[in-house]
């Protein structure tokens, strides 16, 4: 049996109509780093808080380490948690904050000291040991919160958007620190974030949620390459995937502005039986370089650049195509200026197709029916 297991877990808050979380199923292996992502209000925190025991599970079952935990008090679940707003004890020094739990757990004093020294050291908090939280910066506070969680030797780590109050640079460095800690301590970690970059970079597996329902669970690249529906495809990846409503032709697709692209048989075979589909393609799969223009010369298209986002290493180009404002992601060597007329191709094998109504990915050949 897996280390943590959620079976058909549902949550309905009092005095609300809809479920906040519906039929959440997930099996987490020991030492795995799992990220919950999804837009605001999708039920990530609710799920995490049900695992922690701060919210009652309305229906379904939760197992941690083989034991059913639905009715177990939070402190007996063997978890520690890092909160979004740190939740430090404001009247205690850094050291006291970190050691408080150990004291309550009646750990011998010399052992507490050893643990606190260790945590303070790996988190780089030596200078701040005797400060109170209000005299620390956001990043330092977050490290104290981490310290408080790691000294307790719990098997499960829960984190609810621990980095969302930090600035961009600090977030990157804390991200690395958390990954490093996870590798060193090997505790099973569930990490809630609405930032897909955090999820992609840190997690072994990602759970994508929407409106309280799990959309897809999988390794980061699996979600990126094989999103199971339009929502996942749009949520993962930046800039967002381009989605076009297209008409399926015998040997290709026609966009709503009348332009059409011929596609290889292997691709059109998938679309058998469909009239209309949603075609999605990521910005980096729209190519401007000579080599690709040459390879796919039959399907070459033209557009006028309307806007650019210069990032330095990469640039985003915006142009009107297929009835929407499309975005392409190009390397810094392919600079285009606003107003330039450019040629481009879309890599046919990188196209994703979604059912026009259900928005499910079309993967199996000829499953259509319209």
């Amino acid at each position, binding site marked *: 049996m897996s280390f943590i297991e959620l079976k058909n877990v549902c949550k309905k808050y009092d005095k609300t109509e809809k479920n906040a979380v519906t039929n959440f199923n997930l099996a987490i292996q020991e030492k795995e780093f799992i990220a919950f992502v999804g837009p605001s209000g999708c039920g990530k925190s609710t799920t995490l808080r049900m695992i*922690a025991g701060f919210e009652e599970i309305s229906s379904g079952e939760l197992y941690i380490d083989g034991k059913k935990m639905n009715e177990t008090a939070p402190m007996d679940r063997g978890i520690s948690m890092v909160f979004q707003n740190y939740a430090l004890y404001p009247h205690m020094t850094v050291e006291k904050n970190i050691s408080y739990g150990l004291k309550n757990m009646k750990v011998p004093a010399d052992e507490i000291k050893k643990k606190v020294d260790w945590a303070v050291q790996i988190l780089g908090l030596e200078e701040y040991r005797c400060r109170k939280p209000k005299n620390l910066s956001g990043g330092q506070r977050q490290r104290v919160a981490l310290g408080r969680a790691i000294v307790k030797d719990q098997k499960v780590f829960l984190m609810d958007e621990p980095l969302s109050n930090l600035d961009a640079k600090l977030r990157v460095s804390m991200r690395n620190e958390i990954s490093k800690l996870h590798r060193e301590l090997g505790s099973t970690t569930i990490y809630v974030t609405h930032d897909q970059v955090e999820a992609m970079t840190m997690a072994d597996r990602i759970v994508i949620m929407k409106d309280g329902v799990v959309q897809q669970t999988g390794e980061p690249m699996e979600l990126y390459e094989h999103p199971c529906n339009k929502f996942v495809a749009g949520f993962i990846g930046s800039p967002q995937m381009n989605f076009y409503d297209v008409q399926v032709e015998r040997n290709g697709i026609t966009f709503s502005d009348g332009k059409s692209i011929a596609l290889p048989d292997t691709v059109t075979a998938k679309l058998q039986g469909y009239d209309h589909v949603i075609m999605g393609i990521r910005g980096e799969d729209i190519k401007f370089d000579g080599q690709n223009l040459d390879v796919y010369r039959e399907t070459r298209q033209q557009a006028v650049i309307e806007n650019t986002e210069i990032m330095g290493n990469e640039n985003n180009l915006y142009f009107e195509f297929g009835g929407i404002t499309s975005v392409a992601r190009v390397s810094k060597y392919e600079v285009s200026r606003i107003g330039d007329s450019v040629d481009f191709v879309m890599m046919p094998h990188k196209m994703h197709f979604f059912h026009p109504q259900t928005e499910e990915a079309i993967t199996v050949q000829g499953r259509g029916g319209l």
Partner: protein
Amino acid sequence: MLTKKQKRNNWILVIVLIAASLFFLFPVLWMLANSFKQDAAITRDMNSIRAFVPPALKGNFFDNYVKILTDTSFVRYMLNTLFYAAVLIILGVIVNGLAGYALAKIKFPFRERWLMIIMLLMIVPMETIITIHFLFIAKVGLLNTVIGYVLPMIVNPFNIFLFRQVFVSLPDDVYEAAQLDHCSPIKYFFTMVLPMSKSVVATVSVFTFLNVWNDYLWPSLVFTSGDLLTAQIGLNAITSNDNTTMGQKLAVITMITIPVIIIYSLFSKQIVEGVVSTGSKEG
């Protein structure tokens, strides 16, 4: 930077405030100056500015005070009152604090109703229910005991409300973090909630002290005689005694005023905060 006009207005304000405080201060100054005088001197100085000037610092300067300290049990009454105040501060913070915490953070049926009832109780003056308290204490035979005096004074709807208003804005995640740190709810209240709310604890303590120190009616009912009397009762007994001179009376009144003045000057911030926070700050 203040503009010229603001500066001028500030000055006007300062002058008005000084004038107002002199107005309130002058009876106190008069009392203080005359508490060192013999009665003859008091009558003599009554109509001149010397009424505000203490006598020369000679051998008999403290006579009035010495007389009070040696001939009456006033010091004892003051110490009694300090003791009652201390007990009531501790019990009051615990009982009203726990009630305020429950109303702020614990979900139970009809919580909002309870809060309404407690707020309504704030309107009821102590004087109107004091007879009931008295009858109850008399029935259970607790007249002339410390317990009988303290018991009905512990619960204070105003303080419950004050605590509740502050506790409502305490972050919930700190409680959750403490739970994971194996902190029991009661321990959480004492080691987290109270220390995180030091200023309301101070406010309530100050109010409780002033209440106990200035209260006359309730101790006069509970304590009919003996060593348990409070300072206010003692004050009344001493000042209504025909043998006490005017100067001695003023000395007793000065002595009873001193703790209040000290408290006000040390905790004026908390007192203002307490009054302000009940009005606004709904979490």
